[in-house]
């Protein structure tokens, strides 16, 4: 039985401007013990999909199961298995860290949970903040508490919605160490959305990419990387590229990146650049990474969707 099963999930929001289709028939399964990445540009529907899973939003059609429990009709059983770290940095200003964790534990009906609460505080570097009021914590510390709150009832499925947005390097390391441990040692299933593609590449065994409410890629991370068999030619320049190169290039400020399958193509691109008066500096060739694949997938999907429209 899959840990999480999205079955033809659609979500339509009605607004003054008409209907907004946030999700259009999303279907995929996440197996128990997987570290699964959900990627997509802003507005692709990632957070909506997680909200449907968490019961914060109701799907317009379709259904979502957590270990076979329907998140709508059997919501209590489903939510007990889910630990969700929300994207927004929210907190209750009335209480301190330990109180917040005790309450969250109690809402799930878990009693005598002090040992696990201490372990969470220790593992997430919060031990010396246990008595501090939530208001006094820095943003990074509040983020750690959010993670601890999501894990306090020992859920078998952990959902992290952009947990590292605006978070310093140290916390990122602590967080990934802790979550990877839960995944490897305790067999927890992890569903992660992130904008940091190198994070997804390093952590996730399998990845789904969403675009405009639809799944446009669903494969193991290694499979996805293999798909981008090409290398990338990267150089810096101050001049404008000729049109034929500009059409396939990714330009970030002075940095130009172009797919190049082999040495011949590298030579051809550099020759074309020289012809058109482009002076290439700091030239390097690297393996394609998840970011290249991501951009590829999104562009292909845009073409396909454009062709259909």
């Amino acid at each position, binding site marked *: 039985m899959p840990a999480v099963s999205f079955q033809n999930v659609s979500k339509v*929001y009605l607004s003054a401007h008409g209907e907004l289709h946030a999700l259009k028939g999303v279907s995929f399964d996440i197996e128990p013990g997987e570290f699964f990445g959900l990627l997509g540009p802003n507005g692709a529907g990632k957070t909506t999909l997680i*909200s449907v899973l*968490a*019961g*914060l*939003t*109701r799907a317009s059609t379709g259904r979502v199961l957590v270990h076979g429990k329907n998140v709508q009709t059997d*919501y*209590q*059983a489903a*939510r*007990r298995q*889910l630990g*969700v770290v*929300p994207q*927004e940095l*929210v*907190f*209750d*200003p*009335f*209480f301190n860290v330990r*109180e*917040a964790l*005790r*309450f*969250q*534990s*109690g*809402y*799930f*009906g878990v*009693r005598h949970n002090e040992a696990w609460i201490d372990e969470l505080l220790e593992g997430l570097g919060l031990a010396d903040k246990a008595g501090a009021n939530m208001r006094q914590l820095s943003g990074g510390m509040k983020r750690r508490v959010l993670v601890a*709150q*999501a894990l306090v009832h020992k859920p078998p499925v952990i959902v992290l919605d952009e947990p590292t947005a605006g978070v310093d390097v140290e916390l990122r390391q602590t967080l990934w160490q802790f979550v990877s441990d839960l995944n490897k040692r305790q067999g927890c299933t992890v569903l992660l959305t992130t904008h940091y593609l190198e994070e997804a590449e390093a952590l996730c065994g399998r990845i789904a990419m969403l675009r405009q409410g639809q799944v446009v890629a669903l494969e193991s991370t290694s499979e996805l990387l293999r798909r981008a068999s090409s290398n990338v030619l990267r150089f810096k320049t101050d001049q404008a590229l000729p049109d034929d190169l500009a059409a396939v290039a990714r330009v970030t400020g002075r940095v130009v990146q172009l797919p190049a399958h082999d040495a011949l193509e590298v030579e051809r691109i550099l020759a074309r650049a020289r012809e058109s008066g482009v002076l290439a500096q700091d030239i390097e060739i690297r393996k394609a990474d998840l970011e290249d694949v991501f951009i590829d997938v999104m562009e292909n999907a845009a073409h396909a969707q454009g062709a259909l429209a």
Partner: protein
Amino acid sequence: MTGWQTLFYKEVLRFWKVGFQTVAAPVITAILYMMIFGHVLEGRVQVYETVSYTAFLLPGLVMMSVLQNAFANSSSSLIQSKIMGNLVFLLLTPLSHRAWFVAYVGSSVVRGLAVGIGVMLVTWWFAQPPFVAPLWILAFALLGAALLGALGLIAGLWAEKFDQMAAFQNFIIMPMTFLSGVFYSIHSLPDFWQRVSHLNPFFYMIDGFRYGFFGVSDVSPWLSLALVAGALAVVSAVALHLLRIGYKIRH
């Protein structure tokens, strides 16, 4: 603790931690009413033959404080959680709509009674009304606080901004409590306004509560009890329904 007990405890702790504004402040307000109205009207207004005005005023003030604070508790807790965004911690839990209801209304009753007892203790110095029928006092205090707690729950779910909540409080709750016979017997009103007062559910809560002290009231306490219990049943049903469908809290 089970789920609803935890939420109930958290809600009680929430107002207790800021007890200076949630309990002490309304007690001070009630003392001011007592001093001013008692001073101005004592000897000039005689509502029941054997009862001084100040003694008459005391139960009304106590009940008014109970009702207003029961309402304030659930409504302000919910609107704050909605605006701060921390309501999500509850929305992610397996707590049922009944658990939410019991916890929010229960903690409102506790705050209402805490303030009511506080007002009673400090105004005791001004007048000592008899306790003719304590069970009636308790029954109306509990039912009234629960009714306003449930109403606060509805208002807290409905309101999206603090000013909507303030409007609910200033344009509905305040006039209805002030015009319910806290400061006067409705028998002293012109016929038309007497009939209007009979449409105000707050009137029955105050009147029935006062009956417990003096054994006299404007209408039969049984009628008041039936109406207050009926209102509580209707408001509770609405509140439970809104919680079940996740009105304005789940999309």
